[in-house]
């Protein structure tokens, strides 16, 4: 088992929480993992990414080589395209449909959708809208995690346990809301595939 994942988004969107939950679940599964993050200046509204590598064998490089990622998980549609050179030709791209516009020259959404349409395997969903249905817009990143779960190589129930572990100290209500968001994302993605 070996899954290489690029997580992307805009500073502050919460890609690192997604990485933390997957990481926690992977470690519990006895998998090897490495996860490279970028902290600091780029977190101020710039583009951010994290390389997450899971395997049943020791992982060498913290960075994923070009063309080797099995999956891109992105909280922002334009940001999902930035890391395409890392994606395998047959890899999956799971992205939020809703743009985060904080630059003056943000491209026309039609051109972004045209690029996404060219990819053979993708799931594009509005995670904020789904999160709202689930009861909290703040759980948008967990909806995204739910949508990406089928591609992680880790059982859905283990990801649920990861959420229980990470959010446990915030109380049952927060855990339940996030589990609901995870399920919503998972269900919507199942329908879209």
């Amino acid at each position, binding site marked *: 088992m070996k899954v290489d994942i690029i997580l992307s988004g*805009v*500073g502050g969107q919460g890609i690192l929480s997604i*990485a933390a939950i997957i*990481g*926690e679940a992977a*470690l519990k599964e006895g998998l*090897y*993992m*490495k*996860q*490279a*993050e*970028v*902290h*600091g*200046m*780029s*977190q*101020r*509204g*710039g*583009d951010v990414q994290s390389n997450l590598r899971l395997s049943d064998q020791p*992982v*060498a*490089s*913290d*960075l*994923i*080589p*070009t*063309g080797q990622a099995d999956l891109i998980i992105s909280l922002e549609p*334009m*940001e999902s*395209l*930035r890391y*395409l*050179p*890392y*994606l395998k*030709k047959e890899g999956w791209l799971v992205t939020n449909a809703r743009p985060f516009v*904080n*630059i*003056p*020259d*943000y*491209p*026309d959404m039609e*051109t*972004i959708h045209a*690029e996404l349409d060219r990819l053979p395997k993708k799931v594009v969903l509005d995670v904020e809208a789904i999160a709202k249905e689930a009861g909290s817009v703040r759980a948008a990143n967990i909806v995204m995690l739910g949508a990406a779960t089928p591609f992680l190589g880790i059982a859905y129930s283990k990801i649920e346990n990861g959420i229980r572990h990470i959010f446990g100290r915030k109380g049952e209500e927060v855990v339940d809301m996030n589990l609901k968001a995870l399920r919503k994302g998972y269900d919507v993605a199942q329908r879209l595939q």
Partner: protein
Amino acid sequence: MGKHLFLGDEAIAQAAIDAGLSGVYAYPGTPSTEITEYIQASAIAKERNIHSKWSANEKTAMEAALGMSYAGKRALCCMKHVGLNVAADCFMNIAMSGIHGGMLIVTADDPSMHSSQNEQDNRVLGNFAMIPVLEPSNQQEAYDMVYDGFECSERLGYPILLRITTRMAHSRAGVIRRPMKEQKTMSFPEDGRQRFILLPALARQRFKALLAAQDLFLQESESSAYNTYFDAPDKGLGIITTGIAFNYLSENYPDGFAYPVLKIGQYPLPVKQVERLVNACKEILVLEEGFPVVEEQLRGFPGKGLTIHGRLDGTLPRDGELTPDNVGKALGKSVTGYYTVPGVVRQRPPALCQGCGHRDVYDALNEVLLEYKEARVFSDIGCYTLGALPPFRAIDSCIDMGASITMAKGAADAGLFPSVAVIGDSTFTHSGMTGLLDCVNEEANVTIIISDNETTAMTGGQDSAGTGRIEAICAGIGVAPEHLRTMTPLKKNMEEMKRIIREEIEYKGVSVLIPRRECIQTLTRKKKASRK
């Protein structure tokens, strides 16, 4: 014990705690900040009364760490690579005095400059000071090097420099902890005055001692488990890796190395192992994250007709981080048939947060300075450096911590008017105060804006050393009270801010303006915490 998912920084912090640490001393700086933050948040560190408060700058941090070591306890001192420049005066001279309680200095270098103004490789400074340097290739090694490093430092009598880079500092992996050791009790060096009073006559003795210790450091290095030789049948090439470069090499040889490999994690350069490699292979490839430090040393090696590839001959780029891709390319492997970045993708640079007080400061300053053709704004290191980018384009320089005030002074000395400095509160107390004293002593015609958000914001909101006392500090340095003015940077105060800035630019002498409003990131976090 099970595996813990640790950032490299966290592995270092936990290892130091487990090794019986008594104090960490540091100033925040990416990518080193999380080491100290981890210790600050650790319950066991609190229980053990481990010192972990931020220092005013890296030099005060290192000196305090040395004091703790002098008193026999184990001390850790952490900084980003450029922080070691600030602490260099102390650093070079600890190599003369040596230490008493174990002392580790962590330098977190930032090749590719993710969050820095240069990509200096501090292994060079380790060589310069002539002390042992450790460079881990993974998080477990980082843990083990720190765990064992204090004892090694005590055995050798010298501090050890641990060099990590961004991808080690900010990458997570599973780490196995080792049993927790007792902290040291207070004790003093027997030969303390002979070692710690660096008067010339004594310093000469100390330098001879440091020179004599080099053989010992080399023996340590040659017998170190972190310097490993992997043999392989094909001697057409020999490969040397340092630190995390080993991982990129391994990535390219998932089924075992094709050529002999020397993996280096401890310096000085292990001569025996290097000799073994250069005697076996006529062609050597050096893979190192940062400057061609080993590559340059190898060029002076007594190898007959050795051909050396690396960053100096163009096999690898001279600048920037190593990647599995550029290492693969150096090994003759190429990647083809991957997707390209679509043309619609735009740059998304970092920006000042919406609602940030620095925004209002730059809006007001920009408007006033439209009235002055020659105005220049010397800025500094912090969030407000983002004032360089659109829509503000408000600053003309950002060189090093504190350089805004002193550059403004020098330019004013040269005749520039208005000569404006913009510096943050934490950077001011780090390295701006002494420059302000220069300005006051010479009555320089400068306008200094200390944009005070009451935190060290860029690195994530750590305590700022002078919070609540910035005016008192400026007044104490000698700024005239009538030219020491505060304001609240808000849209509604725009006219008042512009008036004050204009008045103080027109004053021919030192003015200090302090726009003060709490960082909205720390404010939001506080509000969230109080709601719980």
